[in-house]
Structure formats: structure tokens, C-alpha cells
């Protein structure tokens, strides 16, 4: 062991320093030269070899780097005389980690620790290796060794954390926790504890075993003083008492906390829960893990006898009264909301008093009704009111609004009233004219209140900004109800106008992203999305605002970028997470250790992440589907689809996590796969009934199946190509149709695919035949059709190899699989095409299905065809011998030719339609776009809101201040319309390009046959 002063890895530091300097300044060539020179002097030095490996890796030469590392490792292993130090090992570790060979780094440390058993530095390095590999058991063993060597508290806690990880994230049983407790107990007895985090771990170990009494005892004893913040300790104590079901004592503790933190709502809920002996918040305890907490605070119906219930609640009322009296500032909301919670509990107990609830709500409104958070604060209390009571309540608060109050406050209250109307669903019941009036009213209110914001910094939120979002939402509803596209355009214009005044309002931008997506103007949607500057962890939570739309669009370059950035973020984090965990160990923040590992697992199982890992290669396959050789290269790099298949084979798929923040989505598309606007209005009932939690659950239930289906795709493509191309060889070998490996594997995948569609294989077959023959009509609009068509395509490929398909026999003739595929393609594409409206007014989803059919089932089928053609016409063999193969060939070439003809025909139709849209004169399109909203002197229908905004833009109202009036002047309706048109055109051009590449391929295939 040499770690002497002035020495680095056994080499004098002055020799090593210049190499490090060169690496630090990224002069890798110079560094390599210096390192080669150093190696010439010290050929046996593992450190010199490690340095060279480090440089080679940075230069992008992973193979050479690995061999240099292995060389160094070999020296360390074999030569007893060679000094081993942490610097050499940690340098090797860095390179091995970058080469994705953590196992080799670990083996170096294991070897070193074997040679120097009690060296703490090396053991810490080894522990770190195990942290990186998530080997919790080995972590524990190493930590215990370190603890035995030096007896330090921290190493014991490292071991305890490793045990906790085995239980929570590994497969360790609960018995291990007993071991952890024993270790801690023994240490506390002899050495006590010195770190607050150590105490937290001790308590959590006891809590995990339901040893609440013991935990309270420790917390109340000498060790309790480690928790320096008094209320933190009290909160823990309260929690433990409640878990122990000592509710009276717990309530007392929570009361104490509330006395010093009267605005702590969570604590108030705990307090009242304990008073009423309600254990619901203590039994599960997973609320923190949910992104969508339950709409109303969970609580159980109280089992207490009447008089006890009354006396407990009156006690709570008195306490709340006291808190209200002592409240010393206007922003303390908890004591007032507490009154409502008390009323809610009475209601749940069956002793509710509607009048009192309304009174408490009204009081809360008078105090806080002007705040933007009013509606979310009282959300769960409003649910207690019947429809009539709600209307009555709305009337009451309208009357209570004090018109003489400060303008900002009055504005806030008016906004709240609008929001409540939205929340109650009253807007859905208003007649069209009334709804239009409301939107007009909101817009006028926005304009009228602009002067309030004239002196604000442009970065600050303006007063009444929400009014434009609300007006937009109403216009969207009007579109839904009337199908008049004018409203939709107007809703867009309102937001664009708002962004002209202040370009930072993210709420407007998100609405625009969805509205432009709906209108087939995806590049514009994407542009606005980009201004949100979504990066890092927001990629996980916010990408759903745009990714699903782009995923189903022809904007393949943008899609590739989005996927690449997102995957890079996730992969980087998953790679570096363990190092950060080790940082938490080093800084003795043990609770964070567990948290970090759990968080990493959560991200690793993210549905969106796993889908992106599938969709990125599927995109590549789509992009190259016109060239079978390139597809084969891509498939080879994907290990023929096996890797992706594995993603759904392991347990990941069963424990998917969903981390998207759905709350910021517009009301009409609460999750990416729902868009109410595409269906009928029917009184808006569909969006009133469902709550976000419910929708999310439904989405999650389905996600596993979708994920599985997508994961099968690349492998099925690979096998289909094989089945189609091996045809010839097999026939030639023995003149029969052998069942080869590929086809039997493809069959089993087809079975899985059918199952994920909800059908046994045989029933799925019948389904396909029925669809193809037009006996069963599936809504073409339904995206699932694309999955069914994919199924038919792969089925046909499999049948080519096996010919064992026994389709239900009708009138003695077997339907031909080729015909089924052709007819599905033709029927669905042409059907869809006929139903499309002119470009400027058509909705995004119509085009999506068309595009997906062309870029997926049709593309995969064209690969099968390419493979067939290639096997029928081997290169260099012009004249064919005659034999059984040729007979088959002639039958086959006939059906193949038919298929090519069909595909060519339909794609030509699609291209023709697309071209028509693109070449239409701009003026004509702009006219079509603007006519519905630009009628002079209109008093009904779309355009009224726009009229108000245009009027504001054309007057030079000095009251709104210089900045706002300048901004308003730059507003141009025509410019926005032009942008929409250009954006739509570019989507069509991209689609057209895809079609043209397919036509080229089909043309070439035609000529070959």
C-alpha cells in the first residue's frame, strides 16, 4: 500500500500532473502522448495503464480502453509486489463504469480488499461498487466489516440502510428488519446515537415492525433531542401515537403543533382524525406516493356514540375558534377551512347541516374568494352540496361580492365565480347564446382590468390573466356543441392575443398546444410547446402534452428529437443515480438513501420511459420501411427485436409507474387517449362524470397491454421477413412446407398479440375475416383498427411459412390471407379518405388513423412483399428452373403482384388528396378560415369575442399603459391565420413525402415481377 506524500498510484506526482492537466483541458492527444511516455518508464504500473485507459475512453476508443484496463487489472491481480491504492482503483472504476462494466470495477476492489482486509479506504470503495450495482446484501456485509474495524456509527447505519433496501426494494424478508433493530439496539446501548438521521432510521425500523411504543419511548428520551426542530419531533410523536391507536394523546400532540403552526392543514386533518378516532390516514400511508391524491381527504365514518362525537367536535370547534382569533395575518387559511372540515365530518356522520355548510363556505369566500386557490381549497366541500344548493350558493356569493372593494379583490372574486360555474358544470347547461355572452363578459372583464397591470413588470403575472383561458374554454365548448369550426379558431385567437400582450403565460401555451394539434397544425403546436422550455425532470412529467400527438404524426424528425432528448435524460439519471445515493451515504443522510433507490426504481418502471424505448426503434423501422436491407441492419442492431421483447417479458411491465402531471391538461382531453371533442356533446355528461383519478386508473389498466403489443412489433417484423424469405429455400430442399423455427415463434407471438387485443387466437382470426369481408364493422376512426391490421399482416406472413391456417370454412372456400390483408388496407384507407373534410377544417385525429395505416400495417406488409420478391428473384438468377417451387412461385407472384397493385392504388389516392390540399391557393384557405369569425357587426355565433379584442387592438387606450398598448398594436389576426395554414401544409407535405417514398418502392417492385 503506497499512498505516500507526493506519490500518485505509486508514481511521483510531478510525472502524473501534466497528464491530468491535459485531460482536464480536453487535450486528449497530448495526454495520450504523455501517458505513453510514462508507460515506457513504468511499464508495469497499473495506475499508468488506468490513466491511459481513461484517455482512450474519452477519445472514443472503448475497445482499446477496455483492454488497457484489463491489463491493469491483470497486473493488480498477479503481481504481489505491485502497490494497490484507491487512486488506481478509483481511476479504473471510472473507466469501467463508462464502459458499462461495473462488474469488473467491483472485482478489482474485491481483490484489493482480499489483499488488505482491514483497509477502510478500500472497503469504502468496495461498498461504493456495490451501491452502484444495487447489491444490497453485499453492501450490508461490507458495511458490517467496516463497522467491526472502526466501530463508527455511520458504518452501522450504512449496514442498516442496506438491510432496509433489501426489504423495501429487494427480496429480503421482514426478518431482516429484526436483525437491523438488534444491531442498532446494541450500538445505542454502548455508544448511543449522534446523528439526527440515525435516529430517524432507528424510528423507522421500529415503525416498520409496529413497535410504536418503543419508538415513542426513544423519541421522548435523551435521543429525542437529536431532532432539533421541536415541531418535527412532535409531528413524529403524534404519528406514532396515532398508529398505536392512542388517539387522545395523539390529538393532544397535534393540537400542540397547531398552536405553533396554525396554518398546517395536514396537521389539522391529523388532529381531527385523531379526535374522531379515525384510523384511515394511518393504516395505508401511501398517499405521498401518489401524484394524484384522492379528490377528498380520505376518512372513515365515525363509530363513536352520538354524545362523544358531539363533544369531540365541539372541542375541535372551540380550538379552531381560538386559532381564528389568534390568527394574525390575512393569509392564514387553515383555521377557516377547518370550520368547513368540521361541518364535513358532521355531514359524514349523518348530522350534517346544509345551512351551516353554506354559511361556512360563504364566510370562506368573503375572506379568501379573491384568491386563485379558492376553488381548489374548497373543492371537496362543494361536493357536499346538491345541484340546487350549488345554484343557491352561487347566487349568494354573487350577492355578497362587494363592488366597492379594492378592484383587484373584486376581479379575483368575479374570476372565482366563473370558476365555480365551470366546476359545477352549470356552463354545460347554458343555452348557446348565454354561453357566448359569458365568453364575451369574460373578455370584456379582461380588457377592462388591463389598467390594473400597467405598472407591473413584464415578467410578472397580470391581473385577470385567467379570464382569457376561461373564455377560450367556453369557446371550445361552443365548438363541441355546435361543430362550428369558427369557435375553435376564435378560441385559438384569444390565446394568441393574450400571448401577444405577455408571452410567458404557460397556461395559454398548453391550451394552444392542444388546440393546434386538434386542427392539424402540429408544427405550430410543437413550436409553442418548445417555448415552455421543458427539460430535465419535466420531460417525464410534461412531455405527454405533445409526445402522443407527435408520435402519431408524420413529423418524424421532431419525434426523433423528442424521444432522443427524453431518453437521454432518463438514461443519464438512471446511470448517475447510484453515485448520488452514495453521496447521501457519505453525508449521513440515510433517509435519502432509501428515497433515492426507490425513486430510481419508480423512474425505471415509468410507462412513458419504457414506451419511448420501444417507440424510438419502431420509428426507425417506419422511416426505413421502403428498404428491406436497411431494415435488416436496424433489426440486427436491435438483436432481431429480442431486447425489446424482453422489456415486456420481465416484471417491469407488471409494475408500470405513471408520472405524468395530468392536472395541467385541458378539460376536453384529461388524458392523452381521451378527447371529448371528437365525440358527441350529449350535455357534456361524459366529462362531468369522470374524475381524473378514475380516468388515470383506466388508462393504467390498459397500458400494460398496449406496452406488450408494441414490444412484440419489432420481433414480429423480423420473423415475418424471415418467414417470407425462407419460403423458397424450404421448398427447394424437399419440396414440402416444413414448419420452421421462425414460424412457430411467430405463431406464439401472434397468440400473445391476439390476447393483448382481448381475444384468443382463434377468435381473433374470425374477427379479422369478418372485418375484411365487411361483415363486422369496426369504427375506422378507432385506433385499435391499426393494431388489428398489424395482426392481419403478421398473420399472413406466418401463414406463408407454415400454411397451417385453418380459417373457418364457409361454403367450401378458404379465404386467402393475402386477400384479407389487401382488402383491409383498401377498405380502411379509402373509407377514411372519403370521410375527410377539406384540409383547413379537418381534425387531427382523422388524419392520424390514415397516416398510421400507411406507416404501420401497410409498411410492414410492404416488407413482407419485399422479402417475398427477393426470395422469388434471387440476385444473379434470371432463368428459373421449373419444379414445385416454381408452381408455387407463380401462384405466389400473382398474389404478391395483386398486393402491390392494391397498395400502389390506395397510396396514389392518398397522395392525390394530399396534393389537392397543398396546392389550394392560400387566399382561398385563409378565406375559409377567417370567414366564420370575421363577419361585420355580428351579434351571434363565433367572432364576438374576437371583435372585442380587435377593438382593443385598434384603439389607442392610454389607460392600459405604454407597454401593453405597444404589444397590442403588434397583434394581427391574418398573421395567425397564415401561420395555421402554413403549419397544416407542412404536415401534409411530410405525409406526402412518406407516400411518395412508398410509391417509388412499389413501382420498383412492380417492375421486378
Amino acid at each position, binding site marked *: 500500500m503506497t499512498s505516500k506524500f507526493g506519490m500518485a498510484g505509486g508514481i511521483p506526482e510531478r510525472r502524473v500532473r501534466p497528464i491530468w492537466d491535459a485531460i482536464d483541458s480536453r487535450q486528449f492527444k497530448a495526454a495520450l502522448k504523455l501517458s505513453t511516455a510514462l508507460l515506457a518508464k513504468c511499464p508495469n504500473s497499473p495506475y499508468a495503464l488506468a490513466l491511459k485507459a481513461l484517455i482512450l475512453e474519452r477519445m472514443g476508443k472503448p475497445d482499446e480502453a477496455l483492454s488497457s484496463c484489463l491489463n491493469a487489472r491483470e497486473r493488480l491481480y498477479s503481481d504481489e509486489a505491485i502497490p494497490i491504492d484507491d487512486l488506481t482503483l478509483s481511476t479504473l472504476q471510472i473507466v469501467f463504469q463508462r464502459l458499462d462494466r461495473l462488474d469488473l470495477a467491483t472485482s478489482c476492489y474485491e481483490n484489493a480488499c482480499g489483499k488488505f482486509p482491514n483497509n477502510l479506504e478500500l472497503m469504502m470503495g468496495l461498498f461504493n461498487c456495490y451501491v452502484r450495482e444495487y447489491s444490497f446484501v453485499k453492501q450490508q456485509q461490507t458495511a458490517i466489516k467496516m463497522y467491526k474495524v472502526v466501530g463508527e456509527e455511520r458504518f452501522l447505519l450504512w449496514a442498516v440502510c442496506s438491510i432496509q433496501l433489501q426489504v423495501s426494494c429487494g427480496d429480503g424478508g421482514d426478518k431482516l428488519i429484526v436483525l437491523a433493530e438488534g444491531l442498532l439496539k446494541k450500538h445505542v446501548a454502548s455508544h448511543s446515537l449522534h446523528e439526527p438521521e440515525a435516529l430517524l432510521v432507528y424510528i423507522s425500523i421500529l415503525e416498520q415492525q409496529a413497535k410504536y411504543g418503543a419508538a415513542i419511548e426513544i423519541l421522548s428520551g435523551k435521543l429525542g433531542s437529536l431532532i432539533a426542530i421541536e415541531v418535527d419531533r412532535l409531528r413524529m410523536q403524534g404519528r406514532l401515537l396515532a398508529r398505536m391507536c392512542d388517539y387522545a394523546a395523539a390529538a393532544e400532540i397535534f393540537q400542540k403543533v397547531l398552536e405553533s403552526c396554525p396554518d398546517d392543514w395536514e396537521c389539522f386533518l391529523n388532529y381531527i382524525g385523531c379526535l374522531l378516532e379515525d384510523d384511515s390516514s394511518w393504516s395505508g400511508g401511501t398517499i405521498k406516493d401518489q401524484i394524484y391524491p384522492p379528490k377528498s381527504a380520505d376518512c372513515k365514518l365515525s363509530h363513536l356514540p352520538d354524545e362523544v362525537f358531539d363533544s369531540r367536535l365541539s372541542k375541535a370547534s372551540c380550538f379552531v375558534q381560538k386559532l381564528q382569533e389568534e390568527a394574525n395575518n390575512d393569509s392564514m387559511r387553515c383555521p377557516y377551512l377547518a370550520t368547513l372540515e368540521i361541518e364535513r365530518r358532521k355531514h359524514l356522520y349523518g348530522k350534517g347541516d346544509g345551512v351551516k355548510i353554506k354559511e361556512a363556505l360563504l364566510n370562506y369566500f368573503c375572506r379568501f374568494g379573491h384568491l386563485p386557490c379558492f376553488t381548489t381549497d374548497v373543492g371537496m366541500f362543494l361536493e357536499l352540496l346538491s345541484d340546487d344548493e350549488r345554484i343557491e350558493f352561487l347566487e349568494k356569493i354573487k350577492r355578497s361580492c362587494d363592488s366597492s372593494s379594492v378592484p383587484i379583490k373584486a376581479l379575483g372574486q368575479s374570476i372565482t365565480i366563473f370558476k365555480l360555474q365551470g366546476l359545477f358544470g352549470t356552463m354545460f347547461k347554458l343555452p348557446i347564446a348565454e354561453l357566448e355572452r359569458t365568453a364575451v363578459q369574460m373578455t370584456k372583464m379582461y380588457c377592462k382590468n388591463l389598467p390594473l397591470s400597467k405598472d407591473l*413588470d413584464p415578467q410578472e403575472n397580470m391581473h385577470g390573466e385567467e379570464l382569457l383561458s376561461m373564455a377560450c374554454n367556453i369557446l371550445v365548448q361552443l365548438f363541441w356543441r355546435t361543430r362550428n369550426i369558427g369557435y375553435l379558431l376564435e378560441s385559438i385567437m384569444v390565446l394568441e392575443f393574450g400571448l401577444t400582450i405577455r408571452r410567458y403565460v404557460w397556461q395559454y401555451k398548453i391550451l394552444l398546444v392542444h388546440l393546434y394539434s386538434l386542427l392539424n397544425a402540429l408544427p405550430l403546436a410543437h413550436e409553442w410547446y418548445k417555448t415552455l422550455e421543458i427539460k430535465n*425532470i419535466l420531460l417525464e412529467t410534461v412531455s405527454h402534452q405533445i409526445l402522443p400527438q407527435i408520435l402519431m404524426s408524420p413529423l418524424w424528425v421532431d419525434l426523433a428529437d423528442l424521444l432522443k432528448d427524453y431518453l437521454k435524460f432518463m438514461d443519464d439519471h438512471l446511470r448517475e443515480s447510484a453515485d448520488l445515493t452514495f453521496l447521501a451515504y457519505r453525508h449521513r443522510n440515510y433517509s435519502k438513501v432509501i428515497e433515492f433507490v426507490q425513486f430510481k426504481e419508480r423512474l425505471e418502471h415509468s410507462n412513458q420511459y419504457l414506451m419511448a424505448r420501444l417507440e424510438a426503434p419502431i420509428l426507425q423501422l417506419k422511416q426505413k420501411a421502403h428498404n428491406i436491407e436497411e431494415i435488416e441492419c436496424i433489426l440486427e442492431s436491435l438483436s432481431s427485436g429480442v431486447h425489446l421483447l424482453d422489456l415486456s417479458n420481465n416484471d417491469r411491465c407488471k409494475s408500470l409507474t405513471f408520472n405524468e402531471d395530468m392536472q395541467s391538461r385541458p378539460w376536453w382531453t384529461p388524458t392523452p387517449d381521451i378527447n371529448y371533442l371528437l365525440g358527441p356533446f350529449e350535455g357534456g355528461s361524459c366529462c362531468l362524470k369522470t374524475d381524473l383519478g378514475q380516468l388515470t386508473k383506466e388508462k393504467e389498466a390498459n397500458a400494460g397491454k398496449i406496452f406488450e403489443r408494441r414490444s412484440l412489433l419489432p420481433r414480429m417484423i423480423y420473423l415475418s421477413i424471415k418467414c417470407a424469405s425462407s419460403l423458397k429455400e424450404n421448398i427447394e430442399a424437399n419440396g414440402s412446407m416444413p414448419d420452421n423455427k421462425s414460424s412457430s415463434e411467430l405463431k406464439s407471438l401472434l397468440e400473445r398479440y391476439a390476447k393483448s387485443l382481448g381475444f384468443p387466437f382463434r377468435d381473433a382470426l374470425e374477427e379479422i375475416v369478418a372485418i375484411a369481408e365487411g361483415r363486422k364493422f369496426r369504427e375506422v376512426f378507432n385506433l385499435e383498427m391499426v393494431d388489428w391490421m398489424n395482426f392481419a399482416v403478421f398473420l399472413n406472413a406466418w401463414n406463408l411459412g407454415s400454411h397451417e391456417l385453418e380459417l373457418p370454412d364457409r361454403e367450401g372456400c378458404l379465404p386467402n390471407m393475402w386477400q384479407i390483408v389487401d382488402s383491409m388496407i383498401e377498405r380502411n384507407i379509402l373509407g377514411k379518405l372519403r370521410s375527410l373534410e377539406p384540409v383547413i377544417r379537418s381534425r387531427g385525429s382523422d388524419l392520424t388513423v390514415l397516416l398510421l395505416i400507411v406507416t404501420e400495417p401497410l409498411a410492414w406488409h410492404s416488407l413482407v412483399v419485399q422479402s417475398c420478391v427477393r426470395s422469388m428473384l434471387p440476385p444473379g438468377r434470371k432463368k428459373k428452373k421449373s419444379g414445385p417451387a416454381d408452381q408455387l412461385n407463380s401462384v405466389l407472384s400473382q398474389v404478391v403482384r395483386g398486393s402491390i397493385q392494391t397498395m400502389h392504388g390506395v397510396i396514389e389516392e392518398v397522395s392525390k388528396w394530399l396534393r389537392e390540399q397543398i396546392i389550394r391557393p392560400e387566399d382561398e384557405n385563409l378565406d375559409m378560415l377567417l370567414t366564420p369569425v370575421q363577419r361585420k357587426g355580428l351579434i351571434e355565433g363565433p367572432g364576438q369575442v374576437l371583435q372585442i379584442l380587435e377593438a382593443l387592438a385598434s384603439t389607442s387606450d392610454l389607460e392600459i399603459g405604454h407597454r401593453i398598448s405597444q404589444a397590442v398594436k403588434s397583434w394581427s389576426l391574418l398573421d395567425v391565420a397564415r401561420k395555421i395554414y402554413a403549419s397544416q401544409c407542412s404536415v401534409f407535405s411530410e405525409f406526402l413525402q412518406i407516400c411518395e417514398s412508398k410509391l417509388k418502392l412499389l413501382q420498383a417492385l412492380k417492375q421486378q415481377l
Partner: protein
Amino acid sequence: MTTIRRFCCNDLLGFASVNLDHLTETFNMSFYMTYLARWPDYFHVAEAPGHRIMGYIMGKVEGQGESWHGHVTAVTVAVEYRRQQLAKKLMHVLEDISDKIDKAYFVDLFVRASNTPAIKMYVKLGYVIYRRVLRYYSGEEDGLDMRKALSRDIEKKSIVPLKRPVTPDELEYD
């Protein structure tokens, strides 16, 4: 209605509506997690009913001798919860921990010289402009280093403003 508690990893998945604001920076993961791993007491979140995130503060404690101080790295509040003195509450939490637990001499923070609303707020909370840091933000905009003395700095030496501006490389800490 503020439950103020330690920030945890899962909050990173819940703070989108706070961070979508253009003035709130979304840092890379190792930045957040380094703060969580090293200074968990300096990273707090405020929650509203229904576990909605209202805002959060992240900071650290560092320095030697009389420069031992708490530092506010970021403090932010969602639009919905502004104008309710939440930033003030969050700042108090950090000041309290710096003062009582870590016995620091002062708390400091950096703010864009153009961010007048924020500067005004910090002045209200008792911070003074200690010095100007030239081109601190991406080599373009000047930053202001603002400080507030804690109880340990009896003579308030830490907040006596410097007469001349400094450059970023003269700063003691990042």
C-alpha cells in the same frame, strides 16, 4: 394553508405547475439530488390541501469561520398561491435552520439585477444588497448578492455593503 415539510424525490414529479413558470429554473437531476443528499434540511416544500405543491425553497450551508452561512439557491411559488406571503414563510424556515441549528452568521442569495419585484421582496424580508457581481448570469446580466445577518453576527459585520462590484471569479463559493 401551508404544510411545510422536507422536500423529497417524489416532489420532483409534482412540481410541474410551479416550474412551468418561466422564471423558475428546472435544474438537472444531480443538482437537486446533491442538495437532497447533502442539505436535506435546507430543501423544503409547501403543500396545500390535496397535497398540491404551492412552492419550495432549496439552499445549503457552507463557508468557514465568519463566512459560515446559509445560502438560498432557489425559492419559488406557483402562480395560484402568489401574494400570500408564502415565499416569506419559506425563507423563514431556511433562516431559522441556518440560525438555530447550524449557527450560521448570515444568509445570502443571488438575484438578477433586473428582477425588481424579487429585490423589493427580499428587502422587505430584511435583506440588504451586500455587493454587485458583474455579469454573474451566463456572463450577461449582473447579479446582486443580498444578505441578512443572523443572531450569531452580533455586530452585523457580514452585511456591511462592499464599495465596489466583484467579478464572478472573486466569489468565494459557486
